[in-house]
């Protein structure tokens, strides 16, 4: 066994798989306790997402949001910056791209890029703010990002209700976007697959955001692994004092980490407005605020594993939705499974394969002290 468990990467993977399995087992036990037909309910949960084409579409669509959010969170967490700001950045990303989609009279091939750019830019700026407060003003980022989220969500509501909602509309939502403002299908209209394309677009709402998600993943991976900024980011995360000693401008790095993380969250917001809902609605970010954190934790903050974690976790979420629709078990079971995954993956002493990682308590206090002294 030693040759298997010797490699840290294999050990990590086993650990996470074990955590997911344990959480799924617990989910099954809970299902048995509340359901009249637990086997069918759990079958829907585990296999439902693959049972129909439109369900596969739903799963993939949500996974794209989760990839972008997971990248946003893992970039910040990798630098040990505990930003919770993704939700606010996402709301602003949705708003900025939605405004472009609704009001900027450009053709599709210009309007969509402009909308995405607007979302990325607002995410960058709204993300840079808590980074600046942390780096130069010493403000605790957990509290500041929570406050900025609250502010962003209220500004979103305000803009939506008082400026964007058409007068006299019953619901707090915008008009549906014009066709030039909606993400086109992931299959370009080419003559030789016209039949397949029509069949697929009828069944599922999979857009070009798929490619943007893949590109975002590749860029994030490249930036983290191969650029000076990525190196500085990892150094700041590992030991900020050492990084400073080594000549890294840690303050500038921290601001950039927050801002770059915000770009990805902003794009996730653009996906919600331009792709998923195709209009601006109230509470557009609901249910996704903390999901990026789960994905990042499952990927151990490594961008390389974010897509895998996002597809896996998106699958569980999609399965929970189907279970709720087809059985007597509410979808919130997935939240319990999710919490257990986070606890098992992040607790250092719970699962096997990790003996080497045990740190002396003094060290952890030092780390704690650093965090809270700041």
């Amino acid at each position, binding site marked *: 066994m030693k040759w298997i468990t010797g490699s840290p990467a294999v050990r990590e993977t086993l650990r996470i798989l074990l955590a997911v399995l344990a959480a799924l087992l617990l989910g099954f036990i*809970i299902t048995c306790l*509340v359901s009249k037909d637990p086997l069918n309910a759990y079958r829907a949960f585990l296999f439902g997402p693959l049972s129909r084409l439109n369900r596969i579409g739903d799963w993939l669509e949500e996974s794209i949001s989760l990839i972008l959010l997971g990248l946003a969170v893992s970039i910040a967490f990798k630098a040990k910056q*505990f930003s919770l700001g993704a939700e606010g950045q996402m709301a602003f990303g949705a708003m900025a791209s939605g405004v472009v989609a609704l009001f900027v009279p450009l053709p599709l091939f210009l309007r969509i890029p402009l909308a995405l750019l607007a979302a990325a830019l607002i995410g960058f700026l709204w993300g840079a703010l808590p980074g600046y*407060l942390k780096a130069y*003003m*010493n*403000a*605790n980022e*957990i*509290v*500041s990002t*929570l*406050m*900025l989220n*609250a*502010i962003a969500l*209220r*500004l979103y*509501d*305000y803009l939506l*209700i*008082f400026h964007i909602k058409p007068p006299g509309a019953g619901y707090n939502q915008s008009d549906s976007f014009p066709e030039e403002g909606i993400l086109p299908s992931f299959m370009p209209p080419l003559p030789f697959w016209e039949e397949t394309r029509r069949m697929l677009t009828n069944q599922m709402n999979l857009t070009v955001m798929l490619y943007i998600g893949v590109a975002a993943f590749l860029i994030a991976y490249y930036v983290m692994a191969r650029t000076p900024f990525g190196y500085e980011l990892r150094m700041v995360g590992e030991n900020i004092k050492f990084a400073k000693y080594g000549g890294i401008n840690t303050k500038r790095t921290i601001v950039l980490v927050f801002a770059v993380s915000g770009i990805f969250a902003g794009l996730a917001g653009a996906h919600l407005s331009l792709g998923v809902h195709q209009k601006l609605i109230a509470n557009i970010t609901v249910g996704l605020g*903390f999901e990026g*954190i*789960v994905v990042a*934790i499952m990927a151990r903050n490594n961008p390389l594993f974010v897509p895998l974690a996002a597809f896996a976790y998106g699958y569980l979420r999609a399965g929970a939705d189907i279970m709720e629709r087809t059985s007597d078990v*509410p979808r*919130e*079971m*997935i*939240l*319990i499974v*999710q*919490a*257990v995954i*986070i*606890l098992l993956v*992040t*607790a*250092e*002493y*719970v699962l096997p394969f990790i003996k080497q990682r*045990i*740190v002396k308590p*003094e060290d*952890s*206090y030092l780390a*704690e*002290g650093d965090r*809270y002294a700041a």
Partner: protein
Amino acid sequence: MPLDLVLRGIFSAAFVASVLRISTPLILPALGGLLTDLAGATNIALEGIMLVAAFSGVVVSAYTHQVGLGVLAGIMAGMLLSAILAYFHLYLNTDVFLAGIALNIMASGGTIFLLYTITGDKGASSGLASGMVPVIDIPLVREIPFLGTIISGQNIFTYAAFLLTAGVALFLYRMRMGYHLRAVGENPEAAASVGINVKHVQLAAFLMSGFLAALGGLDLSMAYLTLFQREMTAGRGFIALAAVYLGGRKPWGVLLAAILFGFADAFSNQLAPLKIPSQLVQIIPYAVTIIALVLYAAQQRARSSGQQRSMK
């Protein structure tokens, strides 16, 4: 005159009383957040603790027809969640922030899940005849004009919030355990070197934090309203965390900060006749918190550099 209406609304005793009522479920968890923060760990699970307590209180009081048992169950449930957080943080070396997030998610999902299992409804517990804690009319005080309306006729949690603020202040600054708690938060190694058991002190801080946050949750479901609604804490646990910093990490400061949040909430509702969007008014306390956070950090920095200078 709409402005007239607004002013008359704000300068009424009923408005002040409602500010206190709205502030109660912020004051109590904020005191809990203060204790863990001073002990050196951010309790980000205040939100989840409140939710679990609110839910347990409603369910137990509905099934036993005993308000007291409901309150007790809520306190136990909240303290249990806090103990789990402490266990993962202190003994399994989990990052307290991530474990706290996990417990918030579990509380949010678990309460909805159980609500649906028990009542068949995922929105609210309106089908359950749950209890309500007593409102206290203070005989003579009640007769005082203006003040009587404010001080008398509040529910027990509102009185508890003020008494417990005094209690926490007494504990932190007048009791040995309180000194230990602050020493552990200030410098765990130094505290350990003089024989303080750091983990025990932090565990105690988490338990007290759970107790206080649970009272806040119970206030929501057994006083402010008398039912449980999904996600009924609506971010109050996080606002409470902000109040800890806005209040300068001191009990009475935290109380005032929590009341400021409550005031902004009540105030934004009063502005309706002026046609000022309530969303914009509600932003104010969050912005103030960020400013306070910056000022507080600057003050800490000035103090520590001052200490270094005086040592030279």
